[in-house]
């Protein structure tokens, strides 16, 4: 789960990371009101999960009330790379001489957290990592002990952070690691961490991604999830407990097991179609889950045809088929053609049970995908 900047900043500030004064606004009047309170200049920042917000016109620096009103008017309600902006953060502008990068992430190859520091902040850190990897100092951390203070100092010295602020930057890094561990984060980043003319350090941005699998022990963070969700269908998937990713094609895909669903997407592409989504309904295929899955895919206007691919392992094919019949029986009219492929335990029995007035039945995965791609083309 990815928090918005304003949510992450609250978490960072509570943990003791210095942040500029800021307030969230949803209307033009609120923006001006907050800007007056904070004092000009302020930055008006769109709260959407889009990289390169500044370049796309989602961040504006304003000097007075008139400019604040103009900026708010332009940003609130704008379409930023496909996302509607309904919230902005109004934040005191920081006069800086340097921009650093500090971050904590899980190095999955090493199976350990890693702390990273760079003096090349304020730009896309992934580009720095690809083009100039030695510009990022890295320090692996023993998750059983946590980050030792010397490790924070070492990373800061290795990165070449100016001596005058080294101590404060190390302190921010230690705090950042502790909050990373406390929130079960996958990534915690500050980019840029600004250094002012007076050698103060201040977090001008905040990224906090929390491990979805750990949300059960962070009810406070889990509560932020609805606010952070951007896509109606993705919010609906959360409610149903599906793994769902929306894509931009027109072939709806439902299956069981992440690897097999990914493979189904790849086959749609291989046979010339375009996947509309990834939807893993997980183990079993009880009627209720099948109904919910179909409801999700049918309610995506982009979808022209649906492939339903189930490999029954422990779950028997005849039970899955009954679930599909029951589910489709609940629709007065099947809005889009559905192709079903059942394999595994009792698949033959399952195929016999399926009502072929409601669905097209295919025996092989390849055959089912090809048929669905044809249907999707016909519907267009």
């Amino acid at each position, binding site marked *: 789960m990815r928090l918005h900047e304003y949510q992450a900043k609250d978490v960072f500030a509570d943990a003791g990371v210095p942040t500029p004064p800021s307030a969230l606004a949803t209307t033009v009047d609120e923006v001006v009101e907050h800007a007056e309170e904070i004092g000009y200049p302020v930055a008006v920042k769109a709260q959407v999960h889009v990289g390169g917000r500044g370049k796309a016109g989602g961040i504006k620096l304003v000097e007075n009330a008139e400019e604040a009103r103009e900026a708010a008017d332009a940003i609130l309600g704008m379409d930023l790379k496909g996302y509607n902006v309904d919230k902005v953060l109004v934040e005191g502008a920081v006069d800086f001489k340097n921009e650093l990068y500090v971050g904590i992430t899980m190095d999955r190859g090493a199976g350990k957290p890693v702390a990273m520091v760079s003096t090349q902040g304020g730009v896309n850190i992934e580009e720095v990592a690809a083009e100039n990897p030695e510009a990022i100092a890295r320090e692996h951390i*023993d998750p*059983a002990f946590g980050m030792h203070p010397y490790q924070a100092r070492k990373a800061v010295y290795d990165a070449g952070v100016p001596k005058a602020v080294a101590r404060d930057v190390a302190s921010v890094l230690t705090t950042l690691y502790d909050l990373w561990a406390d929130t079960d984060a996958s990534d915690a980043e500050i980019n840029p961490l600004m250094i002012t003319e007076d050698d103060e350090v201040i977090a001008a941005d905040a990224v906090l991604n929390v491990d979805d*699998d750990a949300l059960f022990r962070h009810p406070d963070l889990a509560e932020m999830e609805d606010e952070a969700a951007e896509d109606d269908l993705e919010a609906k998937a959360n409610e149903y407990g599906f793994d769902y990713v929306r894509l931009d094609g027109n072939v709806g895909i439902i299956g069981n097991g992440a690897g*097999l669903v990914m493979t189904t997407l790849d086959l749609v592409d291989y046979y010339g179609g375009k996947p509309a989504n*990834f939807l893993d309904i997980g183990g079993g295929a009880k009627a209720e889950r099948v109904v919910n899955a179909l409801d999700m895919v049918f309610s995506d206007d982009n979808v022209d045809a649906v492939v339903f691919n189930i490999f029954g392992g422990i779950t028997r094919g005849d039970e899955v088929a009954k679930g599909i019949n029951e589910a489709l029986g609940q629709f007065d009219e099947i809005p889009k053609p559905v192709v079903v492929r059942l394999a*595994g335990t009792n698949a033959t029995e399952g195929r016999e049970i399926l009502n072929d007035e409601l669905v097209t039945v295919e025996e092989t995965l390849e055959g089912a995908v090809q048929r669905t791609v044809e249907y999707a083309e016909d519907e267009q």
Partner: protein
Amino acid sequence: MSILVDEDTRVVVQGITGGEGKFHTEQMIEYGTNVVAGTSPGKGGQEVAGVPVYDTVEEAVNEEDADASVVFVPPAFAADAIFEALDTDLDLVVAITEGIPTQDMAKVNKRLEEVDTRLQGPNCPGIITPGESKLGILPGNIFSEGNVGLVSRSGTLTYQVVDSLTQRGIGQTTAIGIGGDPIIGTSFIDALEEFENDPDTDVVVMCGEIGGEDEEEAAAYIAEHMDTPVAGFIAGRTAPPGKRMGHAGAIVSGSGTGTAESKIDALNDAGVPVGDTPEEVADNVEDLL
């Protein structure tokens, strides 16, 4: 022959009194697995499917002389269950549980450096040596005895490929699901090394997916250390960057690492044919045999 498990493997089921644990214990026994004990804190002295239940793993291992455990404990308590198993002298711990917090697994990973026990998983379907023993939730009826080894990050994708093989009359020595999480105990390389040392395995199938660099590292290992031919498959060619495709580990990071393309290229460079479809994987296995 086989790798890691056979008909003599004595198995403890951790979390045997839960719904999943009980159901799959019955399924494993029906397949022929030698399930000798179960554990469930506070339920010691009971029996499930004719198997004695103990309060602790240590007690179960000592009383029943067990070699391996299967973990069906829910995610919030699973890391604790794995730590408990690692503190005994079991040879193998197979963690089926899906959804264990990654930071818990980082701590488990640290502990693995200090013990001799092998962890397989978590978030995996388990391991099966057809005709002898299965530990986990794999559907036994689709597997058959033979000379192809299989290692995969995904459960149902494993079934898809095995089904294609079995229908062509190609059986398996052992099939092992290593799991779809970012931090796992047994890697592709660990499993490939076991298959390379198994005289009965003539071809190995390796099913990878997007995310991380394990497949690239495995490709390097194959090129340098393996005589046994390998056929490959990579799921997730069409996955967009930054989206988690079901498995916590299946994510292409923004900088372009972990893509299907880089994995397929690495495998091809190592002489491994990578099928475009699961059927093509089975074709490649036939060619290699």
